[in-house]
């Protein structure tokens, strides 16, 4: 048997020992490869998304690489730790440390190669499926499977170098320990509890402070808080796991009537030991899990924003211009001809909107004519408006405003022309997107409208009214190519300090396609990164348990001899594992919930979207996954310690 054969047989015959490590490596390669397939996709490279998303994809890919390196390094360390006794025997038999490094190196290369090959094979097999999902999300015509050397080369290069470097690194930089210590590992466990009361309380205070700030976040304080809150939370979480948890367990332990009752003693004592030794890992896990939660929650939010987009933007194209706009005819006819060229059916409604001064508010009010509005409503298929003389109706500017305005009743006089009206209704649907109508827009009857002869006079420099051209296009998404030049002009102007163009143009389809593709891409990136994060967070615990399994087994042996029934053993394992799993996850969940409170506040002022439903759904799904994962691990763990 040569040395190479020894390494090879070590791996092949002990495949069960290596399984956990192998699975971790395999999954990293798998995700990375699929992702590279997308990144190098010719259609995506051609830039249907523009340059910005490509940069984000590269950033996400780098995060993925860094994290999976860290992940492999960690699992490698745990794996070596679990095999310390085996190595001690080899060293005892006279193996040199150099040879041991070579053994580990060879084994890592074998496992690494297998996981790279299988990861790529499975990755390639699944990439068509993945592309189908991407195609649906990005609403592309087609995203075919392709074969090119780039993703293969990238994956192999990244992971092969990772395996080589990590195996060299983890053997050479592991502290040299005496053979005797490795052989008697169980006896050399150090258990001292160290925490300070001050730090313990500080941890709680910092976290609570972060939460309170999150609740107080508004749009104006967003930027300062978004620097401050993560700082508070991260530091607080660190102290929480290194000191606070130990402090609490210690407080309980000092009360015998709680601590010694109902066989609580053993799990509690174990817990303080587990918390002390794994505080830093729990901290990393909590932060990683929080990131995963946040990215998933954010995605749910964005998807809700896109699904509500249709409702918030009922019109396909909108052109708004001053009454004396010189380019009006030119622009409208070009838009119409573009629409006809594309064979899109449309309904054009022309509005003349007049500004008047309301005696009630002493400010301007934008007045729409009943018959103009009804023209548009007919093409929407919405119920029509009927107003008698002296009656008026609010035009809602957002979903929320419908409710608010419906309670309002205003009697006012349009001062310039002395028209008395009573506004006591609101139209129950959004007619215009919020960027077009002012907050104070009303519809009045045609009779009253004809009486508005004198123009708006409160501010002579302001335009007394405007023309509005609303194109209702049933297939509005397909109109994204209409008036691109105009949109360009408008968006350039709106970046300037003062908007001086006499016209304004909005293409819902075009905006939608921008928003959708950007958000979908974020979705994709976020989901992949979150999947890797979640998997990693779970695996950290798994490896930790795996490493200490030998010692645990011995402990349970003693307990079994002393008389512990199967049922009690199970409940003991539950009490041992439950906090390890759900404490970091619970804290992460709590962090994310407060983060979403803040986000909800910001979005409310911004996009008028409620995210409660999506967040609840996303978190429910995550909790379900965690429970399944926990039960899986618990089941394996009980099976291990029982025999």
């Amino acid at each position: 048997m040569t040395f190479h054969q020894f390494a090879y047989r070590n791996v092949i015959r002990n495949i069960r020992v290596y399984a956990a490590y192998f699975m971790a490596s395999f999954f990293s390669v798998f995700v990375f490869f699929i992702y590279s397939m997308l990144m190098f996709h010719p259609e995506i490279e051609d830039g249907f998304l523009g340059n910005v998303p490509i940069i984000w994809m590269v950033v996400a890919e780098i995060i993925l690489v860094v994290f999976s390196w860290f992940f492999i390094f960690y699992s490698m360390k745990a794996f070596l730790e679990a095999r310390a006794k085996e190595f001690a025997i080899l060293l005892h038999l006279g193996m040199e440390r150099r040879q041991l490094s070579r053994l580990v190196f060879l084994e890592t290369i074998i496992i690494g190669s297998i996981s790279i090959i299988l990861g790529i094979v499975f990755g390639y097999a699944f990439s068509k499926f993945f592309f189908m999902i991407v195609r649906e999300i990005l609403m592309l015509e087609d995203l075919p499977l392709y074969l090119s050397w780039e993703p293969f080369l990238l994956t192999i290069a990244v992971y092969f170098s990772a395996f080589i470097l990590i195996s060299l690194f983890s053997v050479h930089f592991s502290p040299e320990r005496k053979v005797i210590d490795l052989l008697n590992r169980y006896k050399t466990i150090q258990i001292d509890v160290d925490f300070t009361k001050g730090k313990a309380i500080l941890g709680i205070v910092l976290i609570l402070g972060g939460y309170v700030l999150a609740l107080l976040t508004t749009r104006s304080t967003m930027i300062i808080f978004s620097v401050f809150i993560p700082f508070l939370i991260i530091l607080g979480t660190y102290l929480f796991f290194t000191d606070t948890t130990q402090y609490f367990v210690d407080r309980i332990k000092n009360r015998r009537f709680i601590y010694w009752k109902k066989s609580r003693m053993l799990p509690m004592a174990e817990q303080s030991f587990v918390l002390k030794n794994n505080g830093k890992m729990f901290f990393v896990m909590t932060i990683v899990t929080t990131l995963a939660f946040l990215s998933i929650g954010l995605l749910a939010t964005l998807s809700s924003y896109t699904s509500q987009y249709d409702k918030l933007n009922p019109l396909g194209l909108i052109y708004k211009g001053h009454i004396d706009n010189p380019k009006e005819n030119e622009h409208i006819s070009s838009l119409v001809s573009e629409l006809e060229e594309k064979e899109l059916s449309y309904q054009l409604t022309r509005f003349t909107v007049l500004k008047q001064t309301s005696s009630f508010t002493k400010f301007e009010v934008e007045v729409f004519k009943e018959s103009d509005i009804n023209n548009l409503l007919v093409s929407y298929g919405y119920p029509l408006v009927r107003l008698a003389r002296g009656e008026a109706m609010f035009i809602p500017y957002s979903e929320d405003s419908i409710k608010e305005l419906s309670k309002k009743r205003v009697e006012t006089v349009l001062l310039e022309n002395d028209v008395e009206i009573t506004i006591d209704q609101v139209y129950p649907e959004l007619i215009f997107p919020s960027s077009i109508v002012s907050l104070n827009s009303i519809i009045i009857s045609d009779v009253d409208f004809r009486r508005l002869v004198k123009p708006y006079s409160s501010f002579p420099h302001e335009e007394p009214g405007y023309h509005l051209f609303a194109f209702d296009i049933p297939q509005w998404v397909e109109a994204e190519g209409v008036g691109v030049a105009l949109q360009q002009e408008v968006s350039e102007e709106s970046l300037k300090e003062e908007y001086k163009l006499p016209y304004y143009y909005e293409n819902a389809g075009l905006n939608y396609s921008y928003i959708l593709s950007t958000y979908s891409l974020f979705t994709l990136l976020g989901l992949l990164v979150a999947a890797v994060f979640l998997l990693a967070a779970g695996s950290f615990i798994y490896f930790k348990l795996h490493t200490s399994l030998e010692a645990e087994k011995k402990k349970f042996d003693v307990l079994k001899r002393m008389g512990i029934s199967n049922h009690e053993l199970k409940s003991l394992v539950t009490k041992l594992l439950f906090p390890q799993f759900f404490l970091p996850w619970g804290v992460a969940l709590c962090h994310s919930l407060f983060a979403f409170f803040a986000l909800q506040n910001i979005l409310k002022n911004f996009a008028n979207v409620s995210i409660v439903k999506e967040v609840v759904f996303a978190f429910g799904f995550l909790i379900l996954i965690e429970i399944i994962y926990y039960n899986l691990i618990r089941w394996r763990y009980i099976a291990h310690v029982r025999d």
Partner: protein
Amino acid sequence: MSVLHVQDVTKVYEGKVTNRALNQLSFEVDKGEFLAVMGPSGSGKSTLLNLISTIDRPTSGEIIFNEMKPQNLNSTELAYFRRRELGFVFQDFNLLPTLTVEENVVLPLTLDQKPISVMEERLGVLAERLDLTTILHKRPNEISGGQAQRVAIARALIHEPAIILADEPTGNLDSNNTREVLELLSNINRERQATIVMVTHDPIAASYCDRVLFIKDGEFFNEIHRDDRRQTFFQRILNVLSLLGGGQVGDLSSIRLP
């Protein structure tokens, strides 16, 4: 009156190589007796102890505790039986490293969910008797081997079991601690009328007992009772051991290694 009755017990380990570890072994242990079981490596001592501990079942034969047959109990009842009727002392102490000394001692009572007043009362008595009061709040890695074994003995006594099973209790101790632990065991045996079954390699340890049972290759070999002087008892044990080893007394030194 016998507390433990081992009757025609045979244990066969099936597997690729069938191994008969115990063969038709019978003996009795009376209440308040301190019995040592001796025999060379592989003679079936550990198997016997596992069978008495009820964590293994005999292939044939019966083990009867106070007229009760644990073979007939299910696994939960067996666990309850062990925690109430049996006390264990191990060679490598097996104290749980995460618990303090006093917590280790009361562990059997917490498993059985006894009231705290009972725990504290018994703990006080035992700590006094076994000289543990100064180390009650230390952890197992902060105390010496002799102290650790005293803690283990306290743990074996606290639930007042019918029988204490000791597996090489002096195997990891130096000669001073060995003497201390053995004297402690024999004193407890006398004072509390505790029944002790001790498995050992060590003729010195065995010489503290009332009776020594020798087994070889899983079968009963010989049995000798204690007389007035420990010295002569020790000598007689050595004589039997030399017979056991096929006349080569020199074997003993290799046997004695833990």
